[in-house]
């Protein structure tokens, strides 16, 4: 987080892209967008464009990764070279390695892994365009792709960041706010069960702000969840019924 002279909130309390502090960017989710994948989803959150493919449950490759009593989730978060301002090398960066892990850990609590012993479930995420908040948007889309693949889930996972710009908390940082703001706190939740499955922060937050962030995130999480269900419903009424039954 680099403080700077860039003014990220104006006198009227509006942000650089005209949003209010508690306002998310435009969100669009589509399920079942790929033919090869067993499940898939496409998400646009502001300028972010991300595609997620789920393959599985299938036989574990390599075999030694298989677990006798449950499925193993393999997760790959990757950014296309043209998704960012300066071309990104296609080989995995340390950031991508970490995000592949925390995204996996954000999804695992929601999947009934024990239903699929000895199998592997692949979650492949490709960021086509990035503008702040790709990890949370990826989680949101990946949960839809898992459901689209017909995988049994306790709940969906809905995710969004709380950030800190101009000394105050705001919802859903865009790229500019992420770069010049004071803090970023991505949160993923199982919205029906009310559990936190991803929680990170950069920047400096007062102890009180941690609590405020959780209060602030509740509403956007609900909105995201509704959009996830809408996307699933649109193509797979049956699958949604399964998900709702578990609510």
């Amino acid at each position, binding site marked *: 987080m680099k403080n700077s002279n860039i003014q990220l909130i104006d006198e009227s309390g509006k942000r650089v892209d005209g949003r209010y502090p508690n306002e998310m960017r435009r969100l669009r989710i589509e399920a079942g967008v790929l*033919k090869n994948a067993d499940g898939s989803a496409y998400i646009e959150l502001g300028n972010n464009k991300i595609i997620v493919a789920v393959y599985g449950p*299938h036989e574990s490759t390599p075999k030694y990764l298989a677990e006798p009593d449950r499925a193993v989730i393999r997760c790959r978060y*990757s950014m296309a070279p043209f998704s960012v301002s300066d071309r990104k090398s296609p080989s995995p960066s340390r950031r991508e390695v970490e995000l592949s892990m925390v995204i996996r850990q954000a999804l695992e609590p929601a999947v009934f892994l024990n239903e699929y012993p000895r199998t592997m479930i692949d979650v492949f995420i490709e960021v086509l365009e990035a503008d702040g908040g790709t990890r949370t948007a990826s989680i949101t889309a990946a949960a839809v792709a898992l459901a689209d693949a017909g995988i049994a889930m306790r709940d969906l996972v809905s995710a969004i960041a709380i950030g800190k710009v101009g000394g105050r908390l705001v919802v859903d940082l865009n790229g500019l706010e992420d770069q010049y703001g004071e803090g970023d706190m991505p949160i993923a939740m199982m919205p029906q069960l009310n559990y936190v499955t991803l929680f990170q922060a950069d920047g400096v937050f007062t102890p009180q702000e941690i609590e405020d962030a959780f209060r602030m995130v509740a509403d956007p999480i609900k909105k995201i969840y509704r959009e996830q269900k809408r996307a699933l419903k649109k193509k797979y009424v049956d699958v949604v019924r399964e998900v709702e039954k578990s609510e």
Partner: protein
Amino acid sequence: MSESKSAGVLSLLKREVILAGLRKGEREDGRSLTEYREIEVKTGYVGKAEGSALVSLGDTKVIAGVKVDVGTPFPDTPNMGVQIVNAEFIPVASPVFEPGPPGEDAIELARVIDRGLRSAEAVDLESLVLVPGSKVWTIFVDIYPLDHYGNLIDASGLAAMSALLDTKLPVATVEEGEVRVSEEKKPLPIKTRVVYVTIAKIEDFLVVDPTFEEELAADARITYAVNEDLNICGIQKGGSGAFRVKELLDARDIALEVAPKLFEKLPGKPGA
């Protein structure tokens, strides 16, 4: 190291079904042997890229993005910009793609696209010199298949060419050897457009724009890159089978016949 590909991916039965159709002049999706699947080209898809295109060829989907950067020329071509084509077979696109650095198939694809563009002099590389011998524009074309349902070469060619046609290059000025890149942009100079026509050989049949299953059934494939003068600006035979000379010449005729339909799908040249 290159190893023979696994056979047995396509059942013999399935191959027989495909062949039975071809003997009647029919393909599974109802196309004629020289017909392409439906083509859709969407440029300007990625805002962060200098140029981009999302291409659908039936169920096959490929995205290509162009990034540009000021770099140094290759030592043997000090007065030309640099064009780099890269393809990643990300596991999103197919259960047969494994994560990891590009394998031989992705490398071949990128090199075939690159050579076609380069042979045709599609990008006017000579106009991309900023300081002769030391500073030139580098044009990166990254090809990402998103859904692999056959014929990645032609789809990638359409995506790469469309992304280049969509590319806006920042206006750069040079003062005392220092390059200044402004906010202003102008189209990347393109001298000619190129399309790629791939024809699979399944027993004695030549089939344009093969699907994934037709590719598995095929003995070999031949790709002709074609420029706007309808000359050949690249050839690549693929697969472990062989062709008769006549088959290669027939394929050439087919390529020249269908190329104009592909050009129609591409954006126009800048300034044209």
